[in-house]
């Protein structure tokens, strides 16, 4: 589907209901039921964003407070900082992860020894399955002031080695980008590798005959074929651009207050501000705000992509 041209899609006739498709509908049924139960039914709970929710009164009888629950997100002096951090980190994550995962996919696809390629693919994939709590402990093993590897090496080479890395704001933006890439590129690489493996070998044979180098083959054959999946990945990533990965931004910096100016995102701020208040309405309002903004951005970006390359747009 991803590689059909727009003109071909336009010519495709819509089929009427076909009895032979019934097994396919049944195969899709569990997923549809899952989506309905866990994605659509809970949407009714969004009403809590406009209520002063009371457990005893429940959703239907809790008093309506309008947009009051949304105020706390904008009334803090940190509103700009948390928004900036969230959006900028996500943009950098998208760009960096895209570049690295495509490069890895190209390299893996070029490996002649299949077993080695599979081993490397598995190795890249493994960090994806670690939780950020574990990643935070691993990072702490490097960064701990007294027992961390970095300070230990500094002391071994004659330095003082007492730097508290969890108080050094300057290292954390690149560090978080690195950790996010280390954990996430393996999964995306598999995605792009799947698309690359679907490219017809004839293109590469013809290119070789024309004297194209590996780089030229990648540039003129592989990357254009990845255009569609990259476009969809970016559009989908836009829906989460106002969401910070809580595990990454809370666990890895060990919730150090000194780092908040560079590690605090919308999700961590909400958690910290509402932990004491336990206000379900305010936390729902924050989630709704993030989802609505993400939805608007998906529409806008899809329209932009549609104008540039209609075949890459999602809808």
């Amino acid at each position, binding site marked *: 589907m991803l590689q059909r041209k727009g003109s071909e899609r336009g010519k495709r006739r819509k089929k009427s209901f076909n009895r032979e498709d019934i097994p396919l509908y049944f195969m899709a049924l569990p997923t549809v039921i899952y989506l309905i139960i866990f994605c659509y039914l809970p949407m009714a709970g969004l009403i809590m964003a406009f209520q002063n929710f009371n457990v005893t009164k429940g959703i239907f009888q809790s008093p309506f407070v309008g947009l009051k629950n949304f105020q706390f997100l904008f009334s803090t002096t940190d509103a700009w900082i948390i928004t900036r951090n969230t959006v900028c980190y996500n943009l950098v994550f998208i760009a960096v992860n895209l570049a690295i995962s495509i490069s890895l996919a190209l390299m893996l696809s070029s490996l002649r020894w299949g077993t080695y390629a599979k081993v490397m693919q598995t190795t890249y994939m493994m960090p994806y399955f670690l939780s950020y709590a574990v990643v935070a402990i691993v990072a702490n093993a490097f960064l701990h002031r007294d027992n961390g590897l970095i300070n230990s090496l500094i002391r071994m080479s004659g330095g003082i080695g007492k730097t508290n890395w969890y108080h050094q704001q300057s290292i954390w933006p690149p560090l978080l980008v690195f950790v996010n890439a280390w954990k996430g590129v393996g999964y995306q690489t598999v995605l792009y590798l799947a698309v690359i493996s679907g490219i017809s070998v004839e293109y590469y044979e013809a290119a070789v005959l024309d004297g194209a180098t590996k780089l030229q083959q990648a540039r003129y054959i592989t990357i254009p074929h990845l255009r569609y999946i990259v476009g969809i990945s970016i559009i989908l990533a836009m829906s989460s651009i106002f969401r910070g990965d809580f595990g990454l931004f809370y666990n890895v910096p060990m919730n150090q*207050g000194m780092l908040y100016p560079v590690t605090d995102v919308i999700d961590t701020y909400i958690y910290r501000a509402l932990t004491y208040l336990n206000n379900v309405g305010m936390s729902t309002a924050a989630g709704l705000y993030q989802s609505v903004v993400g939805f608007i951005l998906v529409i806008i970006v899809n329209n932009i992509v549609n104008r540039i390359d209609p075949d890459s747009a999602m809808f």
Partner: protein
Amino acid sequence: MRKLWTNRAFLFLLVIVMIVPLFACTKPTATPEKPEETADLPEEKPDDSAKEDEEPEPKDELEFVTLDWYLGLSPMPDNQMVNDAVNEYLKEKVNANVNIHYWQSSDWETKMTTMISAGQDVGIIGFGSQSKLDYVVHSNLGSFYPLNDLLDEYGADTKALFPEEIWDCMKINGNIYGIPSLKDNCYIISIIYNADMAEALEIDMESVEYKNWRNIEPFLEEVLAKRTEKFPEYDEYPLCGGAFLEMPYNFAIETFLNDSFLVACNIDPFNDIAGYDDNTVFNLYATDEYREFCKSRQRMVEKNIFAYDYTDKSEWNYTGGMFAWVGWGYTYMEEHLYGDAFRTKMIVSDHIWTDTNNYFSAGTAISANCAEPERAMMILNLVNTDPEFATMMRFGIEGKHYIINDEGKMQFEGSERNGGDRADYGYYYWYAAPVGNLTIVNAPEYLTGPDGIMLKEMVRYNNEAVRPRHMGFVFDTEPVTNELAACTSVVMEYRDVLRNGQLGSAAEVDATVDEFNEKLKANGVDKIVAECQAQIDAWNASR
């Protein structure tokens, strides 16, 4: 056209699917009939003569029920065994069983709030700092069942444990939502010290004028110098364990919020903060005393009186190289608190006080949607008044987890499941504040002292503790929710690094404290203080 109608039908179905849960969520629940929200309950006492004529409902006529009971205590191997024994006891007493859930604090934070918010019947639940459920917040959220009538009818013995003044403290909008645990219900702060080291360094601890951990800095510097001279091998260890909490280790103040000191009052006669009487609300973080406290902490960390970081350093306590630790709630000190390498003794501060928040720090409540609130209250009445039940909840089964020796005293040695090292015990929950009344528990002598002196002293301190002026006042944070959320975030940003003395140098303390307070001001701390003061003035006027 056909496709258009198909799409419309699908969209209509989707909207119905999203709206239906709204009606499903209005299923009738066991919503308790709350008394009207008034400031005070009727003054007249219940007619006891009528009650004496009524016979309690025979337990045989009670229908058998099972309830859940959630405790913020880490699981142990024999939880199910003890649960079965508890059920045997409860079946005989009130024809009920309980499923006791032992949850670590991380589970409480993630699961319990979700369960409560979803309206689930969670039966009996602990609240307070150990249970990670704020009493005031959850009472206002409607998470708990109002206990006013239940206490009078099924919990009279429990109600008699505390004076009426304390029950007034537990009222939120006129309703009592929780039973405080009878334990150290006041702030008993102490220095626990290494008695062997004190003797070796010729330090007369009896002459130390200890009020709080701020006023003993010169004394600790003197001890550090002596330790360095006599035991240089101990220089790698800090002199003391951490004493980072502003209150109660360093300031005797009356507080109105759970985890920050944005609003507080002095306590007469201590008056730790100059320039304020005991009826004026202040923001502790903006005071000169707080600034000096931060500088003091920074100095003491730089000198190694306190460590920069105590994470994963618990083995330091057992080396004999440290001199002192902070104690909270100790009324008796066992001779070998940190192993056999050295003896431990204690000096208790003469600043003993309580406040309303203290009674919110540990207790039990009944879930708002509990199907059997009467039975839950009967069970809570038993655990707070029956020594056998209270002991079983903490120490398990006689013979299995402890034995009664020839002198009639409890001991663990010789028991089947708790005879070895503490780390291998099958069931052991000493103190266990979320369970209930501690003073009736039968415990080994090494925990409670000869003749149970620890518990007796605890009761004495409770009775003699200084009560602040606003005992019973609860700060309604609703008018300042946004400011409180913002300021709480700011407090969490700056608090730890300042109270742990983790800045780069003492020179940074002033700048950091200034930045901290500027940010608090920008996020509305003055409005929070003003609102609290207004509520206190109204509360004073109503009394």
